[in-house]
């Protein structure tokens, strides 16, 4: 028997970076909001860094990879045919529980790749359309940073001063300076002073496994509590299997399972999908029916297609003149966008951001990155506390051959088909990464590295899930319009990374959240028909 619930104005599916933001915005505008989240609320005292065996926990129960972690809220993902493994966290707060909170914005050029380079597609929106929503999101999440970056348009005043660069960050900054290359302190959703009742960071280091001090912003603590105060209802351990429709071209609600495997139906006037770039196409494809045999909102055939991750490579320098590089947040120090914009002379399209990364965490993480056997101890001593990296986050361009489909065999614990990922690093991406690695080596040498270790491609770098239900003007080639409204179903919206048209050369989350808030603003202003 299916348990029926009272109708709601807006049903949001997924309480991660995007879902939590729209939950807050719509609930403060008086919409009756229900949010279904397959994971649970995480208690801050369970985060690894509270425990002496934090590295063991980080490699197991808190692993970034859901296929290794295998929590009850995770679903298995078939990764046999992908060069990059998708990473995510499934709980209230979504992948912002795990993220490292480095928050660069897209550049104006990222929205116009087709016009500039004649490849991929232009977005139907531009940077200036999103700017007020970037600012609105910054206010809620709290940004440590400083205005004046010459590589980006001027921004509103940052909420907090930048995080300290430390000796290690200053070493790299000076190296960029002496090469005459751009760098700037990272904008970070990590508090440098107390902000909105959350404490300043105390530099413990591995913020990617949750921050018990709440210095790192994750949406379970930045948006969700305010949404709940506004009257939004958050139902946890509620895993959606299908979106239902009527014969008037509208969605009507969602079927979901609770923790005891009971099936429920939640009716709604409008539905917002925020299950991320893999979860959203998965549920759209699983919502096929006689009327929509290829899945929901898929008249274009684009649902699941054009999966983008950002290609990633890393060069690590070993230094004699620094120590204790495990102190301080991993990756919110400085970034360089010297090679961000397209330059035909380089032989590839688009560009990349350098992101400085600190040491590899504690001893166990470092030991994993050195060889076993006779040289183990020597290599370990060489590296521990003395290594710094430059990550290359490369623009990823949409290709139909990179896609998510439903696996015909693999299923989650509720019997919902799992996603199967198909992704190959393209020739353009390879050239881009090689260019980045060569330049990273120059910077690290300039900074005095005595040894440089290059990792040409990081297969465990699927942090950014984008492109699988893309935005566009033409219903034949895109899934949603510029308001993130489905072309096929006028009361269905998608607000996560799926709607990205191109990947940009930066971490995507502030852009995901700005798009989400732009969408909720559209609903508030123009869709009063969804309000009961």
């Amino acid at each position, binding site marked *: 028997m299916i348990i029926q619930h009272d109708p709601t104005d807006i049903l949001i599916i997924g309480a991660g970076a995007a879902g939590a933001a729209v939950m807050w915005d719509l609930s403060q505008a008086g919409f009756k909001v229900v949010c279904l989240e397959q994971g649970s609320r995480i208690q801050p005292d369970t985060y690894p860094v509270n425990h002496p065996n934090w*590295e063991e926990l980080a490699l197991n129960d808190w692993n970034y990879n859901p296929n290794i972690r295998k929590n009850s809220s995770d679903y298995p993902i078939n990764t046999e045919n992908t060069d990059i493994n998708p990473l995510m966290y499934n709980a209230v707060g979504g992948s912002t529980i795990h993220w490292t909170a480095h928050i660069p914005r897209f*550049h104006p050029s990222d929205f116009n790749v087709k016009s500039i380079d004649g490849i991929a597609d232009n977005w139907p929106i531009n940077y200036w359309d999103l700017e007020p929503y970037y600012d609105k999101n910054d206010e809620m999440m709290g940004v440590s940073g*400083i205005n004046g970056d010459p590589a980006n348009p001027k921004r509103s005043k940052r909420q907090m*001063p930048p995080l300290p660069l*430390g000796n290690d960050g200053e070493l790299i*900054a000076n190296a960029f300076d002496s090469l005459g290359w751009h760098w700037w*302190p990272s904008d970070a959703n990590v508090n*440098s002073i107390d902000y909105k009742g959350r404490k300043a960071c105390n530099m*413990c280091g591995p913020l990617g496994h949750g921050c018990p001090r709440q210095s790192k912003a994750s949406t379970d603590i930045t948006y969700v509590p305010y949404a709940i105060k506004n009257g939004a209802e958050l139902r946890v351990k509620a895993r959606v299997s299908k979106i239902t429709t009527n014969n008037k071209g509208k969605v009507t609600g969602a079927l979901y399972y609770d923790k005891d495997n009971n099936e429920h139906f939640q009716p709604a006037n409008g539905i917002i999908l925020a299950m991320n770039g893999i979860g959203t196409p998965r549920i759209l494809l699983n919502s096929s029916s006689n009327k929509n045999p290829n899945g929901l909102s898929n008249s274009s055939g684009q649902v699941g297609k054009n999966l983008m991750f950002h290609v990633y490579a890393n060069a690590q320098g070993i230094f004699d003149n620094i120590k204790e590089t495990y102190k301080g947040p991993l990756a919110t120090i400085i970034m360089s966008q010297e090679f961000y914009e397209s330059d035909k002379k380089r032989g590839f399209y688009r560009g990349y951001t350098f992101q400085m990364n600190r040491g590899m965490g504690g001893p166990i993480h470092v*030991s994993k990155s050195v060889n076993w056997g006779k040289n183990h101890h020597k290599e370990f001593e060489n590296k521990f506390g003395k290594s710094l990296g430059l990550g290359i986050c490369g623009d990823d361009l949409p290709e139909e051959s990179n896609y998510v489909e439903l696996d015909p065999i693999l299923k989650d614990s509720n019997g919902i088909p799992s996603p199967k990922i198909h992704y190959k690093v393209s020739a353009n991406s390879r050239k881009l990464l090689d260019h980045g690695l060569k330049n990273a080596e120059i910077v690290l040498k300039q900074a005095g590295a005595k040894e440089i270790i290059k990792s040409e491609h990081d297969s465990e770098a699927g942090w950014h899930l984008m492109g699988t239900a893309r935005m566009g003007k033409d219903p034949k080639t895109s899934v949603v319009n510029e308001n993130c409204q489905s072309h096929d179903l006028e009361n269905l919206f998608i607000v996560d990374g799926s709607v990205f048209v191109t990947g940009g050369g930066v971490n995507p989350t502030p852009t995901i959240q700005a798009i989400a808030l732009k969408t909720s603003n559209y609903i508030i202003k123009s869709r009063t028909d969804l309000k009961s």
Partner: protein
Amino acid sequence: MSKNQEHIDKSKLSLLKKVMNILIPEVDDLPSAGLLITDEKILELLYKYNKYFSSYNKFINAIRLDPNCRASGGFESLDYENKEIVLKELEQNIPEIFNNILEMTLLAYYSNNKVLDRINWKRKTLQPEGWELEKFNPKILDKIKLREPFWKEI
């Protein structure tokens, strides 16, 4: 006794420890990993995480079936160089299983107090103390601030 515990016999454990000795050799006054890591620590990790337990059984079987080991009366009878060769082959042929065994070894080794003392790692729990948060030094921006904006207006 859990289901997993029933399947761990002494000879398998002893073979694993011989492997651990090659993975992390002795250093200064510390013995190699297989001599340093206690049975209790290995069992704790095997019982706690299925990933290690299932790799452990497959790994031990793979060593026992390895032609070099069989030809010379078992892994234990090989000299150091040949032990290393066998492990390198397993690393290539069964990478996921090998990596889980290596990870378990590193976890056990680098959580041993004697090892932590040797590498001078004092901070076992990172919170609540953390480390000191200094102030941002704005002087560092002096040079880059002189650069003209160079983002592309479209």
